[in-house]
């Protein structure tokens, strides 16, 4: 790739000190990939099983209620809520707001904490209802 040597390069990622904003940014991307692959596969399996009949659906539910299935379910819930919170954060950043150092750091932490709290609340509700 041709590049004019007179033009400056931006500093490489490696020189920056890690902060919550960087973590949330790359996690958001990773969570998106997880939702599109594992999340979508689980959703399609659930829907196709429901459309196939009771036997196929119960097979799905037996996998989903086995402990590795539950781990995947909790991980997907957290993944969704982090992607949601980080996406909402990006809506604000896209407006050109929230780039002040303290504000940016605070909202990045808020995104992480929000994802944990929402995941916890969702599973408390699921356990409480016995779903």
């Amino acid at each position: 790739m041709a590049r004019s040597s007179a033009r400056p390069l931006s500093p490489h990622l490696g020189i920056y000190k890690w902060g919550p904003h960087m973590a949330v940014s790359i996690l958001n991307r990773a969570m998106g990939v997880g939702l599109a692959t594992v999340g979508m596969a689980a959703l399609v399996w659930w829907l196709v099983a429901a459309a196939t009949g009771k036997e196929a659906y119960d097979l799905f539910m037996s996998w989903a209620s086995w402990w590795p299935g539950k781990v995947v379910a909790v991980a997907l819930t957290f993944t969704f809520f982090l992607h949601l919170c980080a996406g909402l954060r990006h809506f604000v950043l896209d407006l050109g707001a929230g780039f002040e150092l303290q504000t940016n750091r605070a909202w990045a932490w808020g995104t992480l904490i929000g994802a944990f709290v929402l995941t916890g609340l969702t599973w408390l509700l699921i356990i409480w209802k016995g779903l």
Partner: protein
Amino acid sequence: MGSGTGLGRVRGLGSARSGSHHWWLQRVTAMGNVVLVLWFLFALVRLPSLSHDAVTGWIHSPLNAVPLALMIINVCWHFRLGLQVVIEDYVHGGMRVLALGLLHFWTFGTGGFALYAILKIAFAGTPA
């Protein structure tokens, strides 16, 4: 890679005037997902149980089947745009072509199965 020089533009490697369209659709589908996926999660936890009868009965209603189908379309559209950017950032050369092709198959494959399943339940119900 257009570096903003005249030569870069002449080679047709500069702005194709469609860069913001992809970005914008990513945001529009994101907003749609905020509404549709949250609705889906709320609806799931509000069901009396996750038994086959309860779930198919829920999807059987047009008021649930249509938003659910729209959610599938919107989710597929959103991850098709999003994973394209991820692939373009990290995968190069021939592997990129392969990865983008697989992304197409994954998007339409999963979307097709999910939509068919929803419509089958919505139109016919399922044998017990």
